[in-house]
């Protein structure tokens, strides 16, 4: 009786194959209880290797990690806001990113990110200062495919909300301009694990581009007195798409394991190219930042 059940179990293991697609992986294969090792002594040696695989599979399916990271960075900013001045202002950019990435049961990823930046700027002759600041909250859902061992790519939708302001240090009726949008973006990522000097590193590249949404912009010569004192709105809420908001945000991150299990130091580059052409007004904010921070992995 015992022998026949073990034979059936062994056959099942031999027929087991790892799922190829995400859809298949979302439904974990039914795993029968593993009999105590003592009961299978004396059987085919290969069965131990297959049992280890099952044990491994059980761990892959059950615990779901959640990775939290905090980063700060500094870099360069180049801002044009033709509502304020028709010239580029350049200077130093500071960035802060707070992020949480959850691996879902199907191996996919859900990422939420708060991105805050501030820039100290001046015009090209250095006689006028400007300040630019913004905050974006984004939630991204990546459908992940493992295309090679240790290499995964993911793509999916992203919902984001942004509010920002540029202020030029001179008096007048147009000293500042606000930028705001609520967007549905499309995002992609590539993730690669590699081992170096006996430690596991992780390299991640992420990219997001706008797809559809609503954005705020003043009209060409509209004063904020008209907008916010008189409430005379004139094409201030606009349909945003890749043609009037040809923007791109991307980042390259390297996780270096340190100290306790699950903690890494994260270094990377964040580049954001936010642009818009609303109401005959041109805007761009190009930033390049070197980032440093840490990540912690929690098992749910």
């Amino acid at each position, binding site marked *: 009786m015992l022998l026949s059940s073990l034979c059936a179990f062994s056959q099942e293991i031999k027929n087991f194959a790892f799922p190829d697609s995400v*859809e298949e992986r979302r439904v974990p294969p039914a795993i029968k209880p593993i009999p105590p090792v003592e009961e299978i002594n004396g059987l085919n040696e290969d069965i131990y290797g297959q049992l280890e695989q099952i044990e491994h599979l059980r761990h892959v399916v059950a615990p779901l990690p959640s990775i939290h990271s905090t980063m700060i960075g500094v870099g360069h900013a180049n801002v*044009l806001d*033709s509502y*304020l*001045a*028709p*010239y*580029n202002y350049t200077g130093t950019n500071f960035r802060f990113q707070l992020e949480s990435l959850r691996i879902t049961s199907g191996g996919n990823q859900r990422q939420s990110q708060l991105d805050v930046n501030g820039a100290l700027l001046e*015009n*090209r*002759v*250095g*006689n*006028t200062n400007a300040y630019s600041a913004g905050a974006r909250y984004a939630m991204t859902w990546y*459908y992940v495919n493992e295309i090679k061992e240790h290499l995964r790519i993911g*793509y*999916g*939708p992203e919902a984001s909300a942004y509010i920002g302001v540029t202020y*030029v240090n*001179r*008096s*007048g*009726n*147009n*000293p500042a301009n606000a930028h705001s949008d609520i967007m549905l973006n*499309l*995002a*992609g990522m590539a993730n690669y694990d590699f081992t170096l000097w006996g430690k596991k590193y992780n390299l991640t590249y992420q*990219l997001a*581009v706008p*797809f559809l949404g609503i954005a705020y912009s003043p*009209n*060409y*010569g*509209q*004063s904020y*007195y*008209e907008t916010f*004192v*008189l409430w*005379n709105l*004139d*094409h201030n809420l606009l349909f945003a798409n*890749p043609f009037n908001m*040809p*923007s*791109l945000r991307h980042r390259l991150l390297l996780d270096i394991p340190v100290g306790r299990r699950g903690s890494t130091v994260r270094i990377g580059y964040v580049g954001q*190219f936010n*642009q*818009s*052409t609303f*109401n*005959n007004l*041109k*805007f*761009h904010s190009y930033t390049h930042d070197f980032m440093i921070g840490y990540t912690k992995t929690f098992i749910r």
Partner: protein
Amino acid sequence: MKRISLFILYFIILHSSLFILTSCVQEDEYDNSCRGNFEALWKLMDEHYCFFGYKQLELGVDWREVHRRYAGRVNEKMNNEQLFEVLAEMIGELKDGHVNLSASFDYGRNWSFYQEYPANYNDSIVSLYLGHDYSIASSLKYVILEDNIGYVRCESFADGIGDGNVSMMLNSLAACSGIIIDVRNNGGGQLNYAHTLASHFTNEKVLFGYICHKTGKGHDDFSKPVAQYLEPANSGIRWQKPVVVLTNRRCYSACNDFVNCMKHCANATIIGDHTGGGSGMPFNSELPNGWGVRYSAVVHYDAEMRHTEFGIDPDIFVEMSGADTDMNKDTFIEKARTMLN
């Protein structure tokens, strides 16, 4: 599901490629040279100034002809002062007090709106009326004259004027048979302060004008004019007795708008000289060399959709009399007192 995934992937690749290959949102950059600064100023005004149509009608200003005329005067051998002189003269063609060029060594302007006219104001004489014991509510100085007329001197709308300031002042002047609001030499400030003061002199919501802005680079690209109403003050005191507003050619910008509002208040009479105007709300920008540029960007019309850029007529014209000045009397104030008594 697979189709959606592929669509997202293709879109990202396509969009990123498009972004990299084509789309850098930039403005035309001009060199920081004499020619570059000249062209930058001309273009900035050409695309943003809001009164070209009106100025062509009133003054015969053709902005393209202005370019032709001044372009020949600019060469790379000019120093900063010489370039400034040419550029300031060019924008001076518009005869607009809100159009200015500012450098660290000079301020380009055309203040012909008052410089070519009698001052109709003497600060020393006004000081005699105020005396030493006048009260101050924000930027409003006020006193009760011997004949029980309240005199209010408002030099600017730059400092905050709230309902509380105006109500406390009117409360102090409650026993007066009428008040004089002297806004001569008031060069403007914030529109909402001007409207706050005016709102204490009407019991009804009254149409006093229209406002519109540019929507594009063309000289005639404007938004639909939106009506502007003066609402009665929500809180505090509303003045129910006669009020006289004193004006001269230096009533400009927000003060011009205040006079326009007061013209629609039932108990108000405007006495004095034509106002200076300045109905374009100014915006600021700059040139490649960092010089600041100010220009009119938003148009205000009166209730009949007429421009008030060149000022508003008073109800009663008055000029300062030399004889009065010799006797340390202000003709405008004396005329108002006669009316209110």
